[in-house]
């Protein structure tokens, strides 16, 4: 079950050294009363129509390459997960987060906060409009730069399916040098974090389209 995930200790990513648990997680067979088999349910009244469009909600247009990111959220049997909350956060097109502690001397964009929410439809599909984030330096090692990426937070139907991950862009030359991405041991699993460019999703004269599907882990009750 843990196979596609990175190990907790991945020394190339320096912050894991003092934060990775030294003991493996205790395997536990859930009984039907364990609360981890359930998950919070989010309603449309909590997620506004505009929350999935990160280019709106400000006085003007953000600077950058406009993108559409869409895909499906599925469980590991391929079933679409409808009504699933996705949260997205990212740097702006210059590679800077709208966060007090981000000290990268790239410009902040007054028209871009970089956070959005969306619920999947009946087919498990989501769709965000945003701008492509820039790469940015971090102090993990000399000349360390994160590839452009979107952070995704996803809820499934069980608290144990909860996933935070990152989506990368195809052809990014920084990916092979990135200790966060390379912490995933399996090359095929890494590839699943790279979105696909899609001309079908691309809208003429307006935005480039990318597709990215997310598959959540099994629920213990279904596969004991």
């Amino acid at each position, binding site marked *: *079950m*843990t196979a*596609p*995930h*990175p*190990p*907790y200790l991945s020394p190339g*990513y320096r*912050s*894991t*050294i*003092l*934060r*990775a*648990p*030294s*003991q*493996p*997680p*205790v*395997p*536990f*067979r*859930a*009984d039907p009363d*364990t*609360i*981890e088999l*359930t998950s*919070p*349910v*989010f*309603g449309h*009244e*909590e*997620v506004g129509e505009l929350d999935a469009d990160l280019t709106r909600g400000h006085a003007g247009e953000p600077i950058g390459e406009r993108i559409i990111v869409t895909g499906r959220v599925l*469980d*590991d049997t*391929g079933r679409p997960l409808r009504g699933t909350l996705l*949260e*997205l*956060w990212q740097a702006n097109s210059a590679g800077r*987060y709208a*966060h007090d*502690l981000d000290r990268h001397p790239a410009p902040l964009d007054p028209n871009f*906060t*970089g956070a959005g929410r969306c619920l999947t439809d009946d087919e498990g599909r989501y769709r965000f409009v945003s701008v492509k984030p820039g790469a940015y330096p971090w102090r993990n090692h000399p000349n360390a730069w994160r590839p452009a990426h979107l*952070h995704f937070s996803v809820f499934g139907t069980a*608290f*144990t399916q*909860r996933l*935070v*991950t990152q989506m990368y862009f195809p052809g990014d030359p920084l990916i092979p040098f990135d200790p*966060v991405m390379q*912490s995933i041991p399996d090359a095929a699993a*890494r590839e*699943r*974090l790279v979105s696909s460019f899609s001309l079908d999703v691309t809208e003429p004269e307006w935005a480039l389209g990318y597709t990215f599907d997310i*598959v959540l*882990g099994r629920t213990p009750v279904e596969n004991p």
Partner: protein
Amino acid sequence: MTITPSQTVGPFFAHALPYPHDWELVPPGHPGAITLEGRVLDGAGDPVPDALLELWLGRTGDRGALRRGDGGVSGFGRCATAPDGTYRFRTAPPAGPYLSLQIFARGLLRSVLTRVYLADVPDPLLDGLDPARRATLLATPLDTRSGDAYQFDVRLQGEGETVFLDF
């Protein structure tokens, strides 16, 4: 189908995931409310100032999971740690002896999942642990007169390391 790999939340989740009153699963003065507070610590015993904790009661409650209006109970809450590594929740008591807690942070390539037991009771999980490890899942009552406040520290690594779970 093959599961999508996990990645760290990084240090800059705090302009996206927190929402107003996210740590208050019940409003002030809610009957029977309990407070859960503590610190998140790393392998050197230093506070983790950029962790995000999620608390789940196992039931949705009578208001939205993200909505924080007047009254009602949410089954889900979030709290980002302060610069000194502290967090705090105000919640309704769980139906059983424990709450489910999930921790995200820079340096955690996967979240860690644990349980906060409010009482040391016979329990299928607790009973399978050696006594020292069992103790890491037990919250400490902070006010024995009313029993309405508990402390629970999360140690990510090393001595006293919290028991994390894999289902």
